[in-house]
């Protein structure tokens, strides 16, 4: 693997080497270009630099917006506002969609967890119930064996 920094959560050597994984970016570029066009290695590295610069640009602007609202945490809404301010309005529609999807997923996850808490049973009680179910199905299984 050419990406010496590791994937996803791999800790990089120094913070200053922080960049995006080459393999990922190379793949995405390939997906975007027509089938008969390729990308030079230099270009790919340059593109990665541009992407990192984009992150800094947006983050910086969003940070300002966040401060203006007297908030401490940069929220997605700040990012969207930053995009608009910096002339990237064409991006905001899809970005807002992603945000909506994400919120939806979080809601669904919470619902599942909620079911557990809503049962009102303690963990021990639930474990006991689980064991009962296992015992019942074990018995059923053994009876069918005969």
């Amino acid at each position, binding site marked *: 693997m050419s990406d010496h920094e590791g*994937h*996803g*959560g791999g800790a*990089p050597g120094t*913070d200053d080497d*922080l*960049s*995006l*994984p080459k393999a*990922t*970016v190379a*793949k*995405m*570029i*390939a*997906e*975007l*270009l027509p*089938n*008969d*066009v*390729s*990308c*030079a290695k*230099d*270009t790919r590295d*340059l*593109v990665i*630099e*541009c*992407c*990192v*610069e*984009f*992150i*800094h640009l*947006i*983050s*910086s602007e*969003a*940070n300002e917006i966040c401060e203006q609202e007297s908030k*401490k*945490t*940069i*929220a*997605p809404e*700040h*990012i*969207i506002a930053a*995009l608009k301010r910096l*002339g*990237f309005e*064409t*991006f905001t529609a*899809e*970005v807002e969609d*992603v*945000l909506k999807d*994400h*919120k939806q997923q979080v809601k669904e996850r919470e619902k599942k967890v909620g079911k557990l808490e809503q049962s009102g049973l303690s963990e021990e009680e639930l474990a006991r119930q689980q064991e009962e179910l296992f015992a019942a199905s074990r018995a059923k299984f053994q009876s069918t064996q005969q």
Partner: protein
Amino acid sequence: MKNKNKQTKFPVARIKRIMQKDEEVGKVAQATPIVISKALELFLGMIIAEANKVTAERGSKKVEAYHLKHAVENVEMLDFLKEIVEAVPDPSAGGTIDLNAEPPEKEKKRRGKGKRAEGGAAAPRKRRRKGGKEEEEEEEPEQEQEADNYDNNGRQNADDDEWDG
């Protein structure tokens, strides 16, 4: 075989670390890097599309660094990248262009003829070429070069400085 499903995504944790490299940036909501990831995807798409346009214009099948440089110069949205692409050499000029330096001709003219700072048109002094034949000390900022002295030098060659007879 290219996968056009576009399932590849940027690593969210990495994006967050890059954001926080900026000391001004404090806390970041969990959803924020996810949103940036999408914006980054769109940005990448745009920059590649623009670079590819230049590539196609030049009849090439490979996107070179200077294609990207031209794209950055053409698209206002990409102004913030100008410094990054500055170092990319433009092959059509046969090497690196230092845009801040004066073009070679002007520089040489200044060196050779301090007097001609006011410049006139490409009015060549012809003194150099003659190799000291006639040291015309007169200032002729706007005069025609068809004076009698210059019998065989009717040419208005701006590069005469290099022609050290």
